[in-house]
């Protein structure tokens, strides 16, 4: 059974078409990557799927609930980690979670469990404004997990974090997936999506331009090359699908100019560039 089903979903703001007739589905327990440049419509999609924003047209079912007519039933079934660190900064980590527990009608013992799960037990009584970015991110994830949701929407969960904390967050995401939670992830980091997601969708200007597993996308749309670094520091990329590739490499080796030589797979970033016609960071 699919955890998320989306059909022709659109949202416009005055004359701006933020999301333009997107269709996709996410299987239960899957980590689904939703990738796109700034303003592509990722956050708008999350807001519609989490019941925060009504679609202009189309249909979406999340955790078996219609996002337009069953928002009340939907909300306890999902958790949302916003791209902004939207915590109550004058309150402690524990107080933030206790407030969320009251909203969701959860037992206060659950607060201790999620604090333990994200490794914040020691700092639970500290004011959130004294937390590092990584700690805030972990607290956001703890808040989203508090009511044991079936689906978690993670909007850029590792943006602005140092690599060590980013790795820690990715570990938490994988743990959740192993527990059967469906993850809907938006990210700028293609390597992260490649590493975590079973499938990814590329979003550009509100439209899905590609949707498949990262490997399939790379095979179908990427170009495998031989990277040759010459003595003078110049780097040549020789496409493997070029029928003269073998001869070119051989010639370079025979001329004695080659310093290093290795094969390189296409990256998701390159595939995105090819599909969307623009860089992710644009």
């Amino acid at each position: 059974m699919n955890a998320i089903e989306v059909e022709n979903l659109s949202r416009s703001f005055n004359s701006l078409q933020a999301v333009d007739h997107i269709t996709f589905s996410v299987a239960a327990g899957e980590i689904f990557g939703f990738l796109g440049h700034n303003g592509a419509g990722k956050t708008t999609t999350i807001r519609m799927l989490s019941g925060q924003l009504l679609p202009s047209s189309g249909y979406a079912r999340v955790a078996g609930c219609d996002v337009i007519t069953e928002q009340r039933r939907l909300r306890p079934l999902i958790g949302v980690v916003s791209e902004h660190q939207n915590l109550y900064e004058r309150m402690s980590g524990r107080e933030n979670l206790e407030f969320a527990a009251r909203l969701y009608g959860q037992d206060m013992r659950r607060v201790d469990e999620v604090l333990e799960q994200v490794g914040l037990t020691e700092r639970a009584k500290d004011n959130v404004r004294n937390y590092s970015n990584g700690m805030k991110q972990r607290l956001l994830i703890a808040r989203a997990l508090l009511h044991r949701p079936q689906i978690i929407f993670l909007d850029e969960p590792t943006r602005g974090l140092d690599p060590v904390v980013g790795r820690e967050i990715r570990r938490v995401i994988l743990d959740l997936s192993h527990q059967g939670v469906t993850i809907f992830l938006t990210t700028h980091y293609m390597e992260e999506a490649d590493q975590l997601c079973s499938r990814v969708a590329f979003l550009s200007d509100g439209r899905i331009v590609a949707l498949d597993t990262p490997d399939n996308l790379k095979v179908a749309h990427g170009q495998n090359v031989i990277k040759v670094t010459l003595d003078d520091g110049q780097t040549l990329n020789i496409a493997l699908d070029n029928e003269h590739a073998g001869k070119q490499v051989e010639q370079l080796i025979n001329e004695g100019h080659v310093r290093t030589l290795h094969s390189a797979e296409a990256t998701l970033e390159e595939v995105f560039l090819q599909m969307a016609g623009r860089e992710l960071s644009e």
Partner: protein
Amino acid sequence: MNLQVISAITRKDLIDAIRNRYLLTALITPLFVAVLFRVVLPGVNNRNVLTLVVHDSAGSSMIAELRQAPLIGVVDTVSADAIAGEVEKRNAIGGLVVPANFDADVTAGKQPELTVYINNKKNVFEQNAFRQLLDQHVRLLAKYREPARLNWIDVGEDTKALGRGGLSLNVMLLPLLLIMTLGMIGAMVVPLLLVEEKEKRTLDFLLASPASLKEIVAGKALTGVAYTVLIAGLLLFVNRHSIGDWPLTLLTIMLGLLFVVAIGLLMGSLLSNTMQVNTWAGTILVLLLAPSFPSLGFPAAIDMAMRLLPTYYLTEALKLSLAGSASSRIWVHLAAVSVFTAIAFSAAAWALRRRN
């Protein structure tokens, strides 16, 4: 409406508000002003404007008259020597040593000596009032004929309608403090609670949680109500002896509270960050508070303009209810406040729907 959600939001806001220095300042300002007035004007809560210390062993009819006079408190001492000390101790306007046979000697035209103490710590207006009062009573005792009969006619509001509170300074201050409390709640506390959720994006979290927009707004409004009940309750309790009509006073405050909560929700819906709230709050506060300041003889145009402000009617209703007046005018004022409240709520509902 989910009461559990509303109470969770109110509980969170009650705690969070006192950790926010802007909100804390807004909340304690009326209490601070009340304390300040008590320090600057320690006698403000006395219903007697003038307190007089008297040694009157023979029971003069002049002192008996003074005892009956409104706004004058007469305190007796056992000896003439104790008067100066007692005047200082009680911070009275002055003291009188009335000799034996004073009444008879005055009637006989013997010009008996009346020793008068005057407290130099009192301001010149109070000292002059005391001198005139004494002069008037001595002349009355001597059956001194006034050169002409002065016919005094009140123009404007009948101060007798203000009931037992009369001209007490406290009855003038309390409405100001109560309107200030309501103004702070409406112009700062409720809008800041809403706007901060927008500014810090915590509203996104709330809207993705089981809380609906209606429940979020209800939670914020209840926080405003709770803080008003606390602060206005404290002000009323401290001044409990000055309250003429409790039910009417509470009804007036409740209507005022509904009005300011609606204003707060309207501001919170229309504005998007704390800087905007801080900018607008000053203007809104001045408009809300202006009618509650004692009149300083403004031009007629300004006095008329005040009548366009909802708090003019609220202030008038408060003055009458605090003074215990059963005047029908209070219902006119309360009706006006109700109309303004209905308009403010309609505007707030429109703004919230627009946001949604």
